[in-house]
């Protein structure tokens, strides 16, 4: 076993800089002569811009420029794009409303960018932003998703009914037929609440223009610097791609919100060139609430047909998804291809049909947030399964058992275009029930009742599609880019290893896990490996980090580059050892002539490659290799979460008492880190289930939950201690590591586990978030007998 190799809980390399305050986040970087940008944002949800009076602030102290949408247009700055084309059921393409980096004609949500003030200091820029006179003609906003279709107003004047697309997946006729012969049908209306991602580091950008090289360097908070560079050059005309360097240094969390190409970063880069000085922008938290893409926000009517034994016959789902005011970078893919193909859950469901209509509203754009479509699907399926169990009087674990796709049925093709790679669902469920003492639950319920509390237990069995994505499949479904990943592995003269990856780490610990991978593959010390990411000038073109893809796709690219190094190393070693290539074997960092003790270490071989005094004549010097990996399929992590809650019937307060997670992530590189991913994901899911809700005023379209005072974030005392275990696992056949990805599981599985537990506790279903008020009202509505009686 290699020290600090694959499978070991190695504490992270990157920690030292963070625990000593030496992290280097975008806002920590300053450049000589830098100016400061502050955005003037719309106070209205929907209004026509009548006039922007630049003169109202141009004389103010320190003000250097006031930039507007008209200036951007005059300089040829292009609008923002959505990178995934969806076609409606009738074959027509989605209707994309123009999304400018700064608004010109209308503002379409509270927080929409109207102008950018650039000044010598942040205070001066802020003063001017407050003073800028903008005249608006207020228009009636479209706020409510449920009524957007028939709203009198249009978010985009040329898009009727505010409807972006009306899309479907699955076999409608087969579903109708199955419903017609079902013993029972359960149906539910479900709301998947709108969330604000709230990575703790607000977005920031710092751009500098070098006139000598005619080049822009842009530091920014990004999960995918190469994607930022590509879009900003190809569509926004910020600079030609080879003249734009994008650096994402340390990034303080993303959860999706830092994937997207927003207007602010484009304006900062453009302003730096236009003004000839570096320009810096740092978002305030209250801006982040308005300006960073939100997540979820679905209204769904879902029906499940079952036979008398509780076997699922079919699923019918009709979802309205909120797009917000504009299409964000990947917004179209989230409620379609990242949602409906997961509606089969862990179950053998013969027929599924989903229809999704996506509407514009005068609210912040909505896009991927941890899980992105998959939590919405899991919530639908797992709530319906509980509903069916109730309807049939079946145990909730038992109904799941009866419907699981059996272990030997993989690869399993669902009726909604996915081919699950591998899985062992029953093992996860049984182990989770055992750890949770499911059998002893009724006893605990009685004990709680004696204390006047209502106790409930909930189960959720989730499925997730990770390892995004097989490029051809994704492109055939509308993706505008390939979703492979790249790596370069380089030995130095002295036998150290540099790994350049196209992924980005913003909390996931790639510097550690990729080092473990390389230590194992090349047999070098973990400490001798350095992982470099986040700089388009240093790393190979890569697609970045989201969709739990970095290990399963990026890790595999690294491994393949290592294999190329070993192949070349064999030739060098053969020459040095005067043997034939075929006789050289490589193990644990050593090349050896088979069956002998004649050997060279990989470090000796690397030295020989760079100082080729004696060297194969037909071989290039140097020891480095690059690889691209395009996965043949998604990976499908799965697992079971069991949650126990107690509800105080007097107040409606829910407390999560117990949490068991059994996950099958395939092969786990670093259990310490992967457990951490589960903890974090589960707490985000807990936030969605119990606390978090972005609420807009229905009349005015103002975001009522626009700060940490009004938007409840999970805190340490909301959360129980977790029991997290990894199932023996079903390694993914989609990559040679067998890794599946673990970043989003918690956020996918947690909400239904909690909500099912609350349903069990109080006997009536409530919507997320299950705030004390909602739970209390629900209890009143069913006039629950007092728990203690």
């Amino acid at each position, binding site marked *: 076993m290699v020290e600090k190799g694959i499978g070991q809980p190695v*504490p992270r390399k990157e920690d030292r800089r963070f625990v000593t305050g030496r992290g*280097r986040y975008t806002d920590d970087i300053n450049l000589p002569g830098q100016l400061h940008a502050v955005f003037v944002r719309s106070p209205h949800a929907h209004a026509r811009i009548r006039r922007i009076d630049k003169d109202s602030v141009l004389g103010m102290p320190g003000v250097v420029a006031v930039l507007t949408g008209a200036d951007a247009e005059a300089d040829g700055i292009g609008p923002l794009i959505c990178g995934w084309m969806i076609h409606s059921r009738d074959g027509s393409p989605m209707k994309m409303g123009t999304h400018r980096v700064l608004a010109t004609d209308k503002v379409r949500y509270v927080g929409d960018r109207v102008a950018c003030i650039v000044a010598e200091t942040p205070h001066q820029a802020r003063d001017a932003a407050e003073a800028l006179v903008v005249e608006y003609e207020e228009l009636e906003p479209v706020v409510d998703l449920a009524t957007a279709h028939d709203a009198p107003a249009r978010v985009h004047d040329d898009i009727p009914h505010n409807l972006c697309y009306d899309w479907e997946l699955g076999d409608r006729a087969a579903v109708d037929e199955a419903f017609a012969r079902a013993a029972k049908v359960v149906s539910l209306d479900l709301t998947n609440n709108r969330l604000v991602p709230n990575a703790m580091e607000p977005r920031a950008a710092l751009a500098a223009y070098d006139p000598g090289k005619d080049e822009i360097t842009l530091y920014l908070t990004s999960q995918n610097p190469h994607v930022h560079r590509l879009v900003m050059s190809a569509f926004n005309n910020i600079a030609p791609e080879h003249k734009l360097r994008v650096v994402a240094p340390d990034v303080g969390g993303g959860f999706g919100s830092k994937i997207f190409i927003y207007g602010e970063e484009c304006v900062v880069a453009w302003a730096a060139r236009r003004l000839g000085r570096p320009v810096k922008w740092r978002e305030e938290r209250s801006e982040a609430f308005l300006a960073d893409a939100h997540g979820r926000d679905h209204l769904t009517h879902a029906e499940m047909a079952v036979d008398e034994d509780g076997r699922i016959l079919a699923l019918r789902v009709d979802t309205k998804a909120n797009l917000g005011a504009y299409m964000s970078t990947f917004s179209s893919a989230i409620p379609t291809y990242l949602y409906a193909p997961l509606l089969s859950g862990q179950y053998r469901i013969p027929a599924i049909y989903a229809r999704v209509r996506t509407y514009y509203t005068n609210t912040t754009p909505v896009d991927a947030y941890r899980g992105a479509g998959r939590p919405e699907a899991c919530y639908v399926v797992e709530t319906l399964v509980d509903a069916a169990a109730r309807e049939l009087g079946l145990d909730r674990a038992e109904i799941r058992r009866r419907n699981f796709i059996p272990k030997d049925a993989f690869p399993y093709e669902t009726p909604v275009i996915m081919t699950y790679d591998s899985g062992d669902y029953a093992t996860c469920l049984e182990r989770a029930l055992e750890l949770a003492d499911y059998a002893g639950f009724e006893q605990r319920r009685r004990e709680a009742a004696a204390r006047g509390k209502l106790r409930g237990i909930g189960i959720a069995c989730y499925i997730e599609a990770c390892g995004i994505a097989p490029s051809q499949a994704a492109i055939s479904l509308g993706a505008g880019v390939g979703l492979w990943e790249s790596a370069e592995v380089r030995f130095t003269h002295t036998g150290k290893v540099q790994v350049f990856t196209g992924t980005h780490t913003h*909390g996931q610990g790639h510097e550690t896990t990729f080092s473990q991978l390389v230590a194992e593959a090349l047999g070098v010390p973990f400490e001798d490996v350095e992982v470099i990411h986040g700089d388009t000038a240093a790393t190979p073109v890569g697609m970045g980090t989201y969709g739990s893809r970095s290990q399963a796709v990026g890790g595999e690219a690294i491994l393949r580059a290592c294999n190329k190094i070993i192949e070349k190393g064999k030739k060098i070693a053969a020459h040095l050892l005067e043997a034939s290539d075929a006789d050289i074997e490589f193990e644990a960092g050593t090349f050896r002539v088979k069956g002998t003790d004649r050997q060279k270490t990989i470090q000796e071989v690397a030295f020989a490659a760079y100082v080729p005094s004696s060297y194969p004549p037909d071989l290039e010097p140097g020891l480095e290799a690059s690889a691209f990996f395009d996965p043949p399929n998604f990976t499908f992590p799965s697992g079971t979460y069991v949650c126990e809650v107690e509800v105080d019937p007097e107040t409606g307060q829910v407390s999560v008492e117990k949490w068991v997670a059994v996950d099958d992530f395939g092969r786990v590189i670093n259990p310490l880190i992967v457990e951490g991913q589960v903890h974090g994901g589960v707490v*985000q899911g807990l936030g969605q289930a119990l606390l978090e809700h972005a609420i807009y005023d229905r009349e005015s379209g103002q975001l009522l939950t626009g700060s940490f005072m009004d938007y409840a974030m999970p805190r*340490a005392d909301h959360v129980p201690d977790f029991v997290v275990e990894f199932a023996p696992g079903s390694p993914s056949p989609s990559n040679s590591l067998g890794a599946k990805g673990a970043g989003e599981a918690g956020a996918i599985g947690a909400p239904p586990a909690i909500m099912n537990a609350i349903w069990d506790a109080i006997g009536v279903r409530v919507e997320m978030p299950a705030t004390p008020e909602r739970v209390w009202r629900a209890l009143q509505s069913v006039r629950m007998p007092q728990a203690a009686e």
Partner: protein
Amino acid sequence: MPQVRMRVNGREVSGEVEPRTLLVEFLREHLGLTGTHVGCDTSQCGCCVVHVDGRSVKSCTLLAVQCDGAEVLTIEGLARNGELHPLQRAFHECHGLQCGFCTPGMIMSALELLQRNPSPSEGEVRAWLEGNLCRCTGYHNIVRAILRAAEEMREAPQPAA
């Protein structure tokens, strides 16, 4: 513009600041101590926690001029001679951080807890962290790290920070 003087991490510093300058701005922008972070504008996230005269405070909530003459300790001043403080070490060993953005504030906040209460229970740790948000870790490993550091500090008491 008013002049402020303070001792930061044992070093005398001074500077001219606009009266509205926050302590966190003074630390980050005047002194280049960027380990103290800003995660909100409503004094709720705790990313900015430092110690002023031995008490943990949110440095986004104090004006620099209010700290004239004060003794300030930031995350950069916690390790001594290259040796990590037990809290820093425990956060590392227990994987109590992911993106690291909340970490300086978490550690500085936990430091005061352990100075006041060397043997906190898990519940006391969770309650104390009420003013510190972390979006990455789910708090589980942060709590473990603080409990582990407490144990270590009880066994080998630290010189007063």
